[in-house]
């Protein structure tokens, strides 16, 4: 089942203007905005986040937990895949077909889903180039590695993490019905999953939690590389946003991370340099904890220089 990953995450929020300020500072482009109603903020490949008023009648119903997550929109490779998902899911739930060809329904834990032919734009962007002695240089003479004013724009929606109110049921839905693949598992927490048309280590991670927590734990966008991740996160701190965890580098997925609190009442993560996998990969089973969750962890500080004249 050729699902690529999340194209869009839809939120119902209380403070639209604060969310607008956060998403803009995070580096997403405002691609739609209506005063008092909300709008859409997009990464370079057109994957996006939408924020609307919590009581907006056009939104799918909120989860009983009151979480701000209102819908996860999956992009798939072609219209045939939509037909395939519709045939699979309409056997035991209501699936609504829309004029644009997309379908909507709920997963087995009541999370609202939408499936559409992906709206991602194909991008051809510069990678972060790192020179490693002993290997061919990735940056040649006079090509600079850093600039203070790099744009640092999120490139694509990387992954989402759910607080899962019934993890066995939730996991079975994504693995058995939508054919997501297990890459690794935190034995005391939950599975890292990727859909079949995705090579990233995970586009979904599930956390086993009580029902009153159901919702979105965090959302992450991929950055160019570790340098832009550090720069983007440092700018967020300068603007007064609240670092939650990071910067650091995860073990599972190998991705660099930096998580921020935000007025959408979830975490927004910058991530970079995630592992790719295929069906030859054998999942690892490890207990989650400080040692297994990250290779290292840092805390941002003020910039400094040893003994600048006049200091």
């Amino acid at each position, binding site marked *: 089942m050729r699902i690529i990953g999340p194209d869009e995450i839809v939120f119902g929020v209380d403070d639209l203007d604060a969310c607008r300020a956060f998403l803009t500072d995070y580096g997403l482009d405002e691609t739609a905005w209506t005063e008092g109603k909300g709008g859409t903020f997009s990464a370079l490949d057109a994957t996006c986040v939408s924020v609307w008023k919590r009581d907006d009648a056009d939104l799918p119903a909120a989860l009983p937990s009151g979480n701000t997550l209102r819908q996860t929109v999956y992009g798939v490779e072609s219209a045939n895949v939509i037909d395939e998902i519709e045939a699979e899911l309409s056997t035991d739930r209501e699936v609504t077909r829309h004029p644009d060809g997309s379908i909507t329904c709920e997963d087995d834990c009541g999370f609202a889903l939408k499936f559409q032919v992906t709206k991602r734009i194909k991008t051809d962007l510069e990678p972060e180039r790192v020179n490693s002695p002993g290997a061919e240089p990735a940056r040649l003479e006079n090509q600079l590695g850093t600039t203070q004013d790099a744009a640092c724009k999120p490139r694509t929606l990387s992954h989402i993490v759910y607080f899962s109110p019934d993890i066995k049921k939730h996991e079975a839905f994504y693995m058995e019905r939508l054919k997501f693949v297990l890459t690794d598992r935190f034995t005391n927490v939950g599975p890292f999953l990727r859909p079949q048309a995705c090579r990233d280590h995970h586009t979904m991670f599930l956390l086993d939690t009580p029902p009153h927590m159901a919702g979105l734990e965090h959302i992450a966008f991929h950055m160019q590389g570790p340098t832009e991740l550090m720069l983007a996160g440092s700018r967020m701190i300068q603007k007064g946003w609240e*670092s*939650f965890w990071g910067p650091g580098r995860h073990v599972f997925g190998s991705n660099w991370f930096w998580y921020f609190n935000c*007025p959408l009442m979830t975490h927004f993560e910058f991530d970079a340099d995630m592992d790719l996998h295929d069906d030859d990969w054998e999942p690892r089973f490890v207990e989650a904890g*400080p040692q297994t969750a990250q290779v290292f962890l840092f805390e941002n500080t003020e910039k400094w220089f040893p003994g600048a004249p006049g200091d």
Partner: protein
Amino acid sequence: MPLAIDDRPPVTVTRALCRVEDLRDGHSRGFDPLGEGRDTMFIVRQGDRLVAWRNNCPHYDNARMAWKKDEFLNADRDRIVCGAHGALFEIDSGLCVQGPCLGDRLIPVALDIRDGEVFLAAPYKHGMRPRPGRPHN
């Protein structure tokens, strides 16, 4: 591997955190009494009344709560909100009434108001985890 036990003793802070008039009525503000680099507590002012809590969501140990510097309240300013996952707390009691830590409580910080200045009423424990290899700094 278990986390290192943080047995650093509470620190007596003699200087004032701020003046009452520095606090905006109906708003919150974060403080870093031990100069740890992050706000480890916050005060909410409601009229003449000040309520103070540790900046530590009971959902995850050491979880920072502000959704932005000094912003610890929801949009209606009638609840404390955690910017990590939207948990809502009663301002007066610190009780979580919605969200991941439902039924848990924030940790109170006792204040002492003297001549319009706001002081900590008791020695204050560190709010940030110790640096690696320096558990007693």
